[in-house]
């Protein structure tokens, strides 16, 4: 009965009141945007953990988690949503349990699969915004390519050691995609992932938290209000904590994916014509 008269329940007012009174959230209408939002997080690792917590806390209506990895003791210094009692459990399941307790108003969907050419479209279609919190170039191209073909905006981040990077891709189908920035993939041998490179927990966590802030801004229409300029932000934690903002190129008309004559299409991806393994070198794909 009450639900019909008010757009939010009393319990929702109580839970979200402190964020609703921040002018930038837009109050009730902003909270309803959050409740209606569907966000997919690919990777429940060092970036994914804080993103998932803060998006669930804020009341994002549906959160999907793609991760086929299981929790390992060596993850716990940075993947603080998981814990010693969930070692061996699927990360998406471990995360779901915590998020359900944090905020029962949020629906959490889990996808314990490795994202690939064949399943990405089906998984992405349901969501409004895609978060790339993975750790290999292979997946970064795949996520961007699929998102462009489905017209979704991507928040993409990465980190290693004490540093991190963050950008928004295919913003509103106007902004540049991952291939606009990186038309040619790096040679596999030149890539270090956290498998070998090491990472400091709160440094990657800070970049994950930045992803959550960007996602809230996208949902709340902050960039619609102030305009979107392509950027890449870099964070470094040592020796000094600094965020730098680089102004980046826009959408490239000759981009193989989002350009005027795209060759990276749904058909070429799903058929396997675009071979992400060969493209980026065959490396073990592990969201860490």
């Amino acid at each position, binding site marked *: 009965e009450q639900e019909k008269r008010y757009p939010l329940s009393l319990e929702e007012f109580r839970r979200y009141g402190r964020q609703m009174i921040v002018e930038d959230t837009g109050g009730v209408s902003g909270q309803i945007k959050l409740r209606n939002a569907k966000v997919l997080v690919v*990777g429940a*690792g*060092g*970036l*994914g953990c804080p993103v998932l917590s803060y998006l669930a806390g804020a009341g994002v209506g549906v959160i999907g988690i793609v991760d086929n990895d299981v929790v390992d003791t060596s993850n716990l210094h940075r993947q603080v949503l998981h814990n010693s009692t969930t070692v061996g459990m699927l990360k998406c399941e471990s995360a779901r349990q915590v998020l359900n307790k944090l905020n029962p108003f949020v629906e959490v969907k889990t996808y314990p699969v490795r994202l690939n050419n064949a399943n990405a479209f089906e998984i992405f279609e349901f969501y409004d915004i895609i978060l790339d*919190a*993975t*750790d*290999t*170039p292979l997946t*970064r191209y795949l996520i961007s390519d699929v998102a462009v073909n489905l017209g979704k905006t991507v928040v993409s*981040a*990465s*980190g*290693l*050691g004490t*540093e*991190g*990077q963050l950008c928004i891709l295919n913003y509103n189908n106007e902004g540049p995609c991952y291939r606009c*920035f*990186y*038309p*040619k*993939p*790096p*040679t596999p041998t*030149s*890539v*270090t*992932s*956290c498998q070998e*490179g090491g*990472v400091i927990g709160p440094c*990657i966590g800070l970049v994950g938290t930045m992803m959550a802030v960007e996602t809230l801004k996208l949902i709340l229409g902050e960039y619609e209000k102030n305009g979107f300029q392509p950027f*890449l932000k*870099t964070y*470094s934690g040592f020796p000094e904590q600094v965020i*730098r*903002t*680089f*102004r*980046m*190129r826009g959408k490239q008309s000759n981009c193989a994916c989002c350009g005027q004559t795209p060759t990276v299409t749904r058909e070429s991806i799903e058929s396997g014509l675009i071979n992400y393994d060969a493209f980026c070198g065959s490396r073990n794909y592990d*969201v*860490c």
Partner: protein
Amino acid sequence: MVSVTVEFLGGLDVIVNKQRIHQVQIDEEGVDMKRLISYIADQMITNKNDVEVFLEDGSVRPGILTLINDTDWELEGGEGYLLEDKDVISFTSTLHGG
């Protein structure tokens, strides 16, 4: 002659004595980005095996972003950009960990 700051970020400092920030002076006229890049490969990278971490087919390796005064060099003319005194040129490798 031109005097600029060159930064190697995202772990790229490993190829230049683990020093992130370098003051670089080139005593030539009309130094463009293409010349700076060859200068870095010739004069600054100490271990010649590391040149291929920085260069591929004569240009900056895919996966490395090049910034001129915090702006993507594609917006500033790319290899043809003529350096000016006090410019800050940054190279950062793309991170993939998560």
